[in-house]
């Protein structure tokens, strides 16, 4: 049963109509054969040419083994630079043309009227392009094999170079696909794509330079591997393909740079595809205004979190007379923390309500039953909202780990609470755990707010009423900690502090997004508590959310009046 559910979720990937058609067409007829033959011929010529210029071997002269090795390595560079060039030029051009071609051929409307989703269409295009990139790379094996045979490189280096080329190829294709969705002409899409790629290369170069400078001048702090930011250089095929064997350190772990590159590239690709899917506007008759607003606001919040994290990660506490002053950290945290708190209190619940009444019933409620898997779908009713928050937090954590392995958990701990202690008293916890805690907490909280809004929409007759109810419910939850704080004050007034109210206070404080573990100095404990409360919030959300009522809580007032569709189904 579980297996079947799992398979049916994967199924779209191998029965995706776009992949099947693109594969059929691309390899058709003799033209594909001649193209591949020409490509191989070209590669052979380049290999011969490269060999002749990189190894200037005269028959008469004696040459020492070291310079032979160096020259053969240059040959290896030459081959992979050529491949990198081909990938950089071909991969984005293939996808940049794809959606524009559909529009030009006037097949786009036909596709939109099918039940295929935008994401399905985009992944189809991307996967069929990946298949083509793989073909190009596989065809180049004879040329790259020369490097191994002649001794210019090792098998593992060549494999890593290929892995990096493939990852970069996919990322560049995704960028092309994204511009293809909004452009009207082929040429515009292709120009914009190459422009964006050049920009990406510049940013990667900059990040690489910063971290390389820090690494080599500032002292590596006992790390044998470079900071993970170095891995950004691998996003540039020209650099990545010729720098195999590099490894980076994240939290004391030494991992191959291409793995870090793959992680960064995956996050980027996912973001790019989501953006492209939104631009295609196939989630319905255009995007609903409320969904648009929601995405805009959440993106702002996400950027805000990332920005704040970056400020925290990059600042260095100053030591004055034995005291560690942490002014920047404190100020940043207090200001941003307060702002986010205010923002979430007033805007978060209101954000979810319009979705409930304008955009119809959520997809994850199928005939009154909640489908967890669907909550991951990127649509107005899916968990996209908190998925995005999570994505930003995860991204921030990754960046944190990359930039400053030891500072990351310090900063993440500030994230959780206003820590005034110096870093020595903090129990460092693995970054991956931080990410998991963050995910559970934010998704739990997101779900809680969301269910409050849904419940309000279900109860109310009008949008304004729903917003009011939602706000009141939310304000009640927000006020709870203060009520408990009062209790605690009373308890503190007496001589024997009450452990029960103390615990209760901690629990309710955690209902605020962003302020957690305020009372705890034991970070590891605080973070696990963080996730625990996230889970509790999700449970609370389940209780509040009206899905068990076997009524699709779609439009405002659905609790009173069944929607036409539900009535018909009944």
């Amino acid at each position, binding site marked *: 049963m579980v297996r079947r559910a799992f398979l049916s979720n994967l199924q779209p990937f191998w*029965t995706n*109509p776009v992949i*099947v*058609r693109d594969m*059929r*067409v691309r390899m*058709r*007829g003799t033209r594909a054969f001649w193209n591949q033959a020409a490509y191989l011929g070209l590669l052979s010529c380049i290999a011969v040419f490269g060999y002749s210029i990189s190894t200037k071997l005269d028959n008469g002269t004696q040459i020492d083994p070291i310079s032979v090795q160096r020259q053969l390595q240059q040959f290896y560079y030459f081959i992979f630079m050529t491949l990198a060039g081909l990938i950089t030029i071909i991969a984005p051009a293939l996808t940049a043309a794809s959606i524009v071609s*559909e529009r030009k*051929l*006037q*097949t*786009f*409307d*036909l*596709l*939109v*009227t*099918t*039940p*295929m*989703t935008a994401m399905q269409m985009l992944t189809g295009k991307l996967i069929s392009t990946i298949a083509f990139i793989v073909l190009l790379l596989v065809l180049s094996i004879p040329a790259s094999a020369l490097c191994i045979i002649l001794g210019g490189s090792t098998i593992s280096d060549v494999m890593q170079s290929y892995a990096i080329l493939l990852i970069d190829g996919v990322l560049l294709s995704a960028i092309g696909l994204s511009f293809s969705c909004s452009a009207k002409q082929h040429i515009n899409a292709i120009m914009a794509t190459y422009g964006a790629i050049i920009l990406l290369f510049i940013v990667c170069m900059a990040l690489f330079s910063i971290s390389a400078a820090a690494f080599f001048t500032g002292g590596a702090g006992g790390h044998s591997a470079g900071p993970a930011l170095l891995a950004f250089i691998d996003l540039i095929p020209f650099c990545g393909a010729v720098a195999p064997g590099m490894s980076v350190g994240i939290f004391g772990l030494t991992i191959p740079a291409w793995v870090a590159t793959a992680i960064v590239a995956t996050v980027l690709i996912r973001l790019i595809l989501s953006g492209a899917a939104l631009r295609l506007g196939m989630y*319905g*008759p*255009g995007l609903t205004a409320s969904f648009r607003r929601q995405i805009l606001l959440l993106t702002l919040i996400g950027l805000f979190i990332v920005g704040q994290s970056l400020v925290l990660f990059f600042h260095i506490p100053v030591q004055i007379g034995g005291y560690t002053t942490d002014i920047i950290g404190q100020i940043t945290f207090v200001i941003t923390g307060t702002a986010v708190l205010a923002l979430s209190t007033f805007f978060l619940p209101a954000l979810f309500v319009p979705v409930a009444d304008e955009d*119809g019933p959520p997809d994850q409620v199928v005939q009154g039953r909640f489908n967890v898997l669907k909550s991951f779908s990127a649509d107005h009713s899916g968990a996209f909202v908190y998925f995005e928050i999570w994505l930003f937090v995860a991204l921030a954590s990754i960046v944190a780990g990359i930039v400053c392995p030891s500072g990351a958990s310090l900063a993440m701990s500030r994230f959780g609470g206003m820590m005034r202690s110096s870093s020595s008293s903090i129990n460092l916890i693995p970054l991956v755990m931080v990410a998991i805690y963050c995910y559970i907490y934010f998704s739990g909280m997101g779900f809680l707010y969301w269910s409050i809004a849904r419940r309000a929409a279900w109860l109310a007759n009008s949008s304004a009423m729903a917003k009011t109810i939602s706000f009141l419910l939310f304000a009640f939850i927000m006020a709870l900690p203060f009520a408990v704080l009062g209790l605690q004050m009373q308890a503190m007034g007496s001589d024997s502090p009450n452990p029960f109210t103390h615990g209760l206070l901690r629990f309710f404080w955690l209902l605020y997004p962003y302020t957690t573990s305020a009372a705890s100095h034991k970070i590891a404990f605080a973070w696990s508590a963080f996730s625990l409360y996230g889970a509790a919030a999700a449970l609370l959300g389940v209780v509040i959310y009206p899905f068990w009522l076997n009524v699709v809580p779609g439009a405002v007032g659905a609790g009173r009046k069944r929607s*036409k*569709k539900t009535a*018909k189904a009944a």
Partner: protein
Amino acid sequence: MLVLNNLRKVYGTLTAVEGTSLTLLPGDIFGFIGPNGAGKTTTIKMLATLISPTSGTASIDGIDVIAHPLEVRPLIGYMPDSFGLYDDIKAWEYLDFFASAYRVPKADRPSIIENVLELTDLTTKKDAYVQTLSRGMQQRLCLAKCLVHDPKVLLLDEPASGLDPRARVEIKELISELGRMGKTIIVSSHILPELADFCNKIGIMERGKMLVSDRVESIVQRLQPSKKLAIKALGALDGIRLALDSYPEVTGVTVIDENSYSLLIDFSGDTTAQCVLLRALIEGGHQISSFHETRMDLEDVFLRVTTGSVQ
């Protein structure tokens, strides 16, 4: 099956479609007539979930088109006026692609493709590349594409445009056949005779306004209170014209052709009066070779209701 209620689409200051309402039942073939730029395509696109209306509602099989586009899409087969075919793809692969996009189970696809190819008379072209097909065949292939998921509603925007007379007849027969199969069909055209034969309901649109929309007979009846009778005689018409003058039901006489002795008269009387007139003419010694009621065709209806301001 298909209900439009006050559907409206405004682009800036231009009103493309103005408050259109319509109700169609299964088996209805609705002819959507209007000059180019009248708003036919916009209306059809709104139904096909491609553009969202500014106001108003539309529902197909009880499902709101605007609120649940993803659920409506499997119910409709949409054929745009200018449609695309992929290059380097065979006819059956084209259909297979759309069948899979419409989530038709893989096992059922071969038989469905056979069926729709047979229905559209393209069985022999199954393995032909789509770009090698003639325009008429491509048109039929696009129609076949609309049928792979067995939709309840077909939205055909100018299905017969650019076809030679023979291909035109073929596609018309095909559409009538689909109507008999119980599908609700909307066919648009700016050429009237195309729709006259097989539509049971028509709507005439001009400048975004639906001027009339009803059954063909009722529109004709409404627009033509008096009948037109065509009379052909052997010999001079003067006598007949004199005789006709004495009948109050005859409101007007037009000589169509003096040489072939044919007349067209406006006649306000009923069928009995018509018989009386014919008998009187024959008994009066006039040599009548033909006497029949002419039916006002859609072309006349169109000219009468539109002002011709958009062309």
